[in-house]
């Protein structure tokens, strides 16, 4: 490999990128728009979930209970329904995601037996919202339960001991306030890089074939590896720009905590870009049309990066054979790394495994691309 020829190819590629402002704009604009779209649109934190109350008793006790719901940040009482069909209609329409039903014998049971139950009707179509809503509602009800226990004991003139013999002291690490944005945004950077990176390079070789300039390139003394690296280097720089762009937005705009070192981030990002870019290069060598190459690149990178990388859906909750499949998704390793660097502040030492996988991946893809290119020429 000669530096002079490598340089010539790189300069040619830069000129080509520069003269195609539409592609350049997409390369720079896409990360920007996607960052804001996902950063604001993807939010799993529930607040002010619309619920309806169905008070079949209308007693002091039931009204007290609803006051606890009203005070909760997580619920907003949208309707006070009087009849069962009214509640059915509200949930059918989706106006309310849950209904709290107090039975007609609520305070009677509470007085006689000491225990009473309240029903939470949940709209199960969105199981995640239903699950979280139930957990919050259960917390509200147990708060209420404690309150009436306390006041009951008070009236009896007893001590407060034994009310709650077990206290759960929970401490959340790495994402102390459980803000979904904090884990979605670092992962999102990985998804965007996977998407844009492969898109960028998938066009580069296919374009030469389509325009017939490949034959010209082959007739010059450049070697295939000079073509590959010469073409990849400008995109690597563009990739760095994109990454810097996304990471700045993540930290400055979305205020995601950054606890790791810039060095670790730079090193792993470069490694990931190498995999992504050479992947796009491979596609474009194998498929000689620009449309075909970019389409395959998108389908092959976007969906797996979004679904199977652990960026939002936890991998350990997937069925075993899908979990095995995720080892093939290179975005998986970078998502693990970038989340760890951002939230956990872990150094390179503890990230050896995913880094090793990325290195192996990069070598394999670069090797494959080089081979496929040589084959194409003969």
């Amino acid at each position, binding site marked *: 490999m000669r530096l002079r020829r490598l340089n010539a190819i790189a300069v040619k590629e830069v000129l080509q990128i520069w003269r195609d402002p539409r592609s350049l704009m997409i390369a720079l604009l896409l990360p920007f728009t996607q960052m804001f779209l996902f950063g604001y649109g993807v939010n799993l934190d529930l607040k002010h979930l619309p619920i309806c109350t169905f008070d079949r008793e209308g007693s002091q006790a039931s009204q007290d209970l609803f006051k606890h719901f009203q005070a909760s940040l997580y619920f907003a009482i949208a309707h006070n329904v009087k009849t069962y069909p009214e509640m059915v209609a509200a949930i059918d329409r989706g106006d309310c995601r849950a209904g709290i039903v107090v039975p007609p014998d609520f305070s009677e049971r509470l007085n006689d037996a000491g225990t009473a139950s309240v029903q939470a009707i949940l709209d199960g179509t969105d199981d995640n919202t239903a699950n979280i809503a139930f957990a919050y509602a259960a917390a509200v009800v147990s708060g209420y339960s404690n309150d009436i226990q306390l006041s009951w004991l008070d009236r009896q003139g007893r001590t407060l001991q034994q009310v709650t013999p077990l206290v759960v*002291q929970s401490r959340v690490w790495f994402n102390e306030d459980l803000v979904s944005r904090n884990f979605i945004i670092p992962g999102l950077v990985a998804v965007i890089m996977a998407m844009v990176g492969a898109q960028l390079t998938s066009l580069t070789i296919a374009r030469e074939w389509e325009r017939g300039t490949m034959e010209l390139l082959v007739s010059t003394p450049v070697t295939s590896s000079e073509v590959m690296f010469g073409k990849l280097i400008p995109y690597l720089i563009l990739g760095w720009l994109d990454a810097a762009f996304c990471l700045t937005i993540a930290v400055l705009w979305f205020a995601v905590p950054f606890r790791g070192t810039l060095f670790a981030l730079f090193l792993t990002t470069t490694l990931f870009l190498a995999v992504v870019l050479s992947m796009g290069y491979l596609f474009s060598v194998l498929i000689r049309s620009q449309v075909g190459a970019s389409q395959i690149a998108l389908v092959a990178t976007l969906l797996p990066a979004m679904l199977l990388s652990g960026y939002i859906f936890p991998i350990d909750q997937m069925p075993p054979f*899908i979990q095995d499949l995720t080892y093939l998704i290179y975005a998986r390793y970078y998502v693990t790394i970038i989340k760890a660097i951002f939230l956990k502040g872990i150094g390179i030492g503890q990230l050896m495994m995913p880094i090793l996988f990325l290195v192996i991946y990069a070598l394999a893809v670069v090797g494959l691309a080089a081979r496929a290119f040589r084959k194409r020429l003969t």
Partner: protein
Amino acid sequence: MFARLVPIMIKEFLEISRDKAARFLLVVPPILQMLIFGYAASFEVYHVSTAVLDLDHSQESRELVARFTSSNRFDIVKVAASQREINKIIDASGAAVALVIHAGFAELLRKGQAAPLQVIVDGTNSNTALIALGYVNTIASGFAQDYVTDLMQRVQGAQGMRQVRVTLEQRPWFNPDLNGRWFFVPGVIGTLTLVLIVNLTAFAIVREREVGTLEQIMVSPVRPAEFILGKTVPFFLVGLGEVALVVTVGLVWFRIPFVGNPFVLLLGTTLFLLCTLAIGLLISTVCSTQQQAFSTNFLILSPFFILSGFAYPIASMPQVLQWFTYINPLRYYLVVIRGTLLKGVGVSVLWPDFAAMAILALVLLTLSILRFRKTLE
């Protein structure tokens, strides 16, 4: 008009059926995506990897840990010997939850004082962490309540003090097991259809423009309206077939229920397809090459996809983005498809969504036809 319309439609069908890649793209990726989505996309939380540090070694502490072991929500993967070990495990993602019971736990319980159970949660995935914490609390309060009941019976007998307790019962409608697949699979049906039909329509027209066959058609006696209809009707039929295919996969493979009326779904699908055809047509008017069409499609479709309520609740979005969802046909179609499959509701409930899609279809179609004519001139 009809005499000229039919040949265009036949030509379009022939083109699809002769294109090996197109035939492949119409059948295999949707099924594959359906399977991957169906299996991978889930917010359910089971078998959370859990580390335990029991420094009390009492009957009570073991009983508490046993409750976690016996639930299918937590899997005890590591038993640690020190707090430092616990910290290391969580740092290295060896476990997502750690339970720490300090020495003196049982003593506090027996004395009737509040005994702490320390829980450390890896909050990296806040959603999983939140749900897991909910389960920790449920198990802990179950333990507490049983312990108190037990104690009162033993110590104070019948005349002692009384537990006053209010419990909350869970009654999930439409999806009794709160199965995540029932939520995602209908969403996938909608998103797949959107992406597929917009791509097909936009590409078919841009290809003719790029190859130059559009001019040939325009010098023939075919009128623009006939050309548009001839192009869109086949894709409409392909779209219906596609919906039927993915719905069938959902019903047969993932056992999604279909409690509603198929005709209501058909009506909703028709309106939705009209919207997607119009979007494809509109994109084709601003692009001159397939490459442009591809990137434009991508730019336009991703907001439709994210801001539809497909996976992320609309209610949690900022107000501005919530406004945008009102012009997103996918938003309405997802309500219709979940409503008919899972809830079994009919037109009386879904009419606002039908109306919205009808208005959108009308506006988009008018716009795209006007623009399309202009590009022909």
